[in-house]
């Protein structure tokens, strides 16, 4: 998934960690929206975290004699954020446009076809199901090409296909676990957002990190795939009722992503 796409839907972290944890640790009931909004700081876990960090900054800044710097940051960082968005606006528009052209030309479908045999080795049980393999390879291709807007709905489709192929259980199959790991260890050919930021900060060759990025992404992917094979443990099918409840709760957290 493209960096900017993921962050556009994911501004805050602490509260979401609790929510996500509740999805994966079924011993605990999912934390409901209500319970979070009833916490003292109003905004739930994230609000609490932000309140603590700002208060700690004020107190520590006053003690360390950095109060004027803290004040300057509190006043000026918002325009800094606006300028950053403006700087990234051009990059984002350019590559969204180029990606749209590439997609329309069938470049995504072509690359997906090319990748299918390799991905078949990764997902041996899904290989026999053509529909599943097509969804997986389209998603991986979109990630590689930096088509963040396309990768997520394709990935969700792939997950649903994998679930169908695996018998519709509420526990992740080996292929589902591996597919999520492949997606969290994103491998992107052109990290355009990062390069744009480097360019703005005066880097003479913002893309000179490319080989290092590829090596890092590839190594991280390899480690993730091996770890997914090692960590996978079979769990018996769970009661579908509970799964649906938490599943729809998790879906509700992120709203309707695509129309």
């Amino acid at each position, binding site marked *: 998934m493209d*960096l*900017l*796409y*993921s*962050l*556009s839907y*994911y501004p805050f*972290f602490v509260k979401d960690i609790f929510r996500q944890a509740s999805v994966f640790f*079924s011993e605990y009931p999912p934390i409901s929206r209500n319970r979070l909004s009833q916490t003292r700081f109003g905004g739930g876990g994230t609000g609490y975290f*932000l309140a603590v*960090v*700002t208060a700690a*900054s004020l107190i*520590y800044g006053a003690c*360390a004699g950095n109060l004027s*710097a*803290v004040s*300057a940051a*509190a006043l000026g*960082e918002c325009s800094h*954020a606006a300028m*950053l968005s403006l700087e990234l606006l051009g990059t984002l*528009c350019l590559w*969204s*446009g180029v990606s*749209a*052209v590439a997609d329309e*030309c069938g470049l995504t479908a072509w690359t997906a076809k090319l990748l299918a045999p390799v991905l078949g080795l990764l997902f041996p049980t899904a290989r026999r199901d053509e529909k599943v393999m097509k969804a997986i390879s389209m998603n991986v291709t979109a990630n590689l090409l930096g088509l963040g807007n396309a990768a997520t709905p394709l*990935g*969700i489709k792939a*997950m*649903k296909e994998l*679930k169908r192929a695996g018998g519709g259980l509420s*526990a*992740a199959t080996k292929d*589902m*676990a591996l597919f*999520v790991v492949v997606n969290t260890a*994103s491998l992107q050919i*052109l990290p355009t957002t*990062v390069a744009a*930021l480097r360019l703005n900060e005066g*880097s003479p060759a913002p893309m*000179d990190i*490319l*080989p*290092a990025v590829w090596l*890092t*992404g590839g190594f991280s*992917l390899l*480690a*993730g795939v091996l*770890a997914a094979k090692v960590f996978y443990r079979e769990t018996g099918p*769970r009661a579908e009722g509970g*799964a*649906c409840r938490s*599943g729809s709760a*998790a*879906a509700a957290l*992120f709203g309707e992503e695509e129309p």
Partner: protein
Amino acid sequence: MSAFQAGDFAVPLAIVLVFSIAAVRRKDLFSIFLSGAKEGLATTAHVLPALVLLMTVIGMARASGLLGLLTDAVAPLAERLGFPAEVLPLALLRPLSGSGALAFFEELLGEVGTESYGGRVAAVLMGGTETTFYTAAVYFGAAEVRKGNGAIPAALVADFAGTVMSALAVRLFFQ
């Protein structure tokens, strides 16, 4: 071919390749590009409010010296791993929050420069890893899967491997 040249080739080549294929296939390049670029506009507008909030909070923590305190505390551990201490908070933030990581990365570049060891490691880390928890939650949530069966620990192993490798790769290619 040196790393420098490969980087200079990649971006123009990608654009030329895509545009040429569009021309050969007689696609309406102009209007397709415009409708795609409009999506970028919407995404940026979506990101701005979160960036304002998070950059203000991170900026305050940095200006007060609190962030430096944290960096100093983890420095010995980072040094043992050969990892630049100033980038370590970014490595911890990266799997959790996309906008938090972006805000931190931008400020770090301004502080240490793009061509420094730390600045390069941060860039490689940003390019080679992903907002793990968000991705996992979206996919498992959409498929209504409750048990990850080891996917989250494995994804965190991938993040850790990427973090360690980002420092190694920068040393390999730039020193």
